[in-house]
């Protein structure tokens, strides 16, 4: 996963300045993925070039406000509606996606979780078939590899259940409030 999709998701909520995007991204995803501001601007330039982001004229302070184009909005919707390919990228994408999904207004986080759960269950079904075909007496090492994958897939489903149960029990966190909490957490760490 590139930082691109995370930035697009934040811009889908409201136009933001580059520095704001960096701060929001880190806070909203619990500091899972620190990004430097240069990386944010390089990504924004690329997104502008690709027609997904629109940059306003610089204001008096020299700051540029970025907003999403229709094609950028489409890319975000596609991200929310497409399950993460676990093999394709770092594992953190799912955590970031859910953290943003449960705090982004208008995003059905239960649907995001369910899409992932179904994808993970399909994987678990495939691994179960695979496991049945392995003879442990012949290939115990291969069985362990398969089981490792199997438990990872199971753990992911259990975690998705827990996330969803939390949202159902406590309601969706207010994104502003969660940013304040994240601020305090960062303060305390210093």
């Amino acid at each position, binding site marked *: 996963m590139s930082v691109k999709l995370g930035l697009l998701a934040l811009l889908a909520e409201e136009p933001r300045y580059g520095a704001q995007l960096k701060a929001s991204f880190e806070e909203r995803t619990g500091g899972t993925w620190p990004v430097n501001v240069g990386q944010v601007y390089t990504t924004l330039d690329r997104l502008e070039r690709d027609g997904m982001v629109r940059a306003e004229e610089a204001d008096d302070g020299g700051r540029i406000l970025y907003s999403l184009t229709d094609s950028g909005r489409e890319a975000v919707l596609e991200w929310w509606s497409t399950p993460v390919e676990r093999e394709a990228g770092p594992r953190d994408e799912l955590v970031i996606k859910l953290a943003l999904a449960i705090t982004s207004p208008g995003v059905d986080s239960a649907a995001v979780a369910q899409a992932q759960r179904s994808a993970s*269950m399909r994987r678990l*079904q495939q*691994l*179960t078939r695979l496991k*049945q075909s392995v003879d442990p007496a012949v290939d115990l090492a291969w069985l362990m590899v398969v089981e490792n994958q*199997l438990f990872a897939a199971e753990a992911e489903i259990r975690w998705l259940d827990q996330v969803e149960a939390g949202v159902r029990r406590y309601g969706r966190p207010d994104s502003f409030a969660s940013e304040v909490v994240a601020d305090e957490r960062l303060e305390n760490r210093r």
Partner: protein
Amino acid sequence: MTAPVLQLLEVSRVHGDGETAVHALRGVSMQVSAGELVAVMGPSGSGKSTLLNLAGALDRPTSGEVEIDGTRLGRLKTQELAALRRRRVGVVFQDYNLIPSLTAAENICLPLELDGMPVLAARQEARATLKDLGLGGLADRFPDQLSGGQQQRVAIARALIGQRKLVLADEPTGALDSVTGEEVLAVLRGRCDAGAAGLLVTHEPRHAAWADRVIYLRDGVVVDGTTARQPARAHA
């Protein structure tokens, strides 16, 4: 294309009425065919137990139709329903529910005897079934002489003895450790591969993964389903 052994058509079940009415199921349609194992997952209160009770003819829907082996249950009288339940549906519970004063073989042949099969023929069929499952040596043991996993495998054999084509399993691995649970699932899977239709309710994603399809219930509605193998399932 074989006709489904179990079919639910737009089934709803409301418990109580007025302001306190609980909509346990809302317009659920699904089917289970011969040779197929379907798992049902969902949080507590999502309607799993209601679904299982309706599928097992233990309860009647508020609206919609349940069909077992081509028979629409809505038209049956209570007595006919009881007969259909006895002859067509096997149920497996978390706590095995074997009769403690009967041996494994006697437990398995009990439904056959209730259906009027001569005792000797029924015993023979029960022993053959136990042998099929690799439990031949346990035929004359009483439930308290069997481990939990063995008891549950006997319970599955009992659920599918005779003409029964539909087995409903309610958390069958709930009381078992992980490895023993898998042995029980292997038996259930094997019975379905041999032509039974199975509906499995479980909290365990790893156990649900033994099914051909996994259906998710939430607030009485099917929200999603996955299919492991399409369209035809190759035998593992």
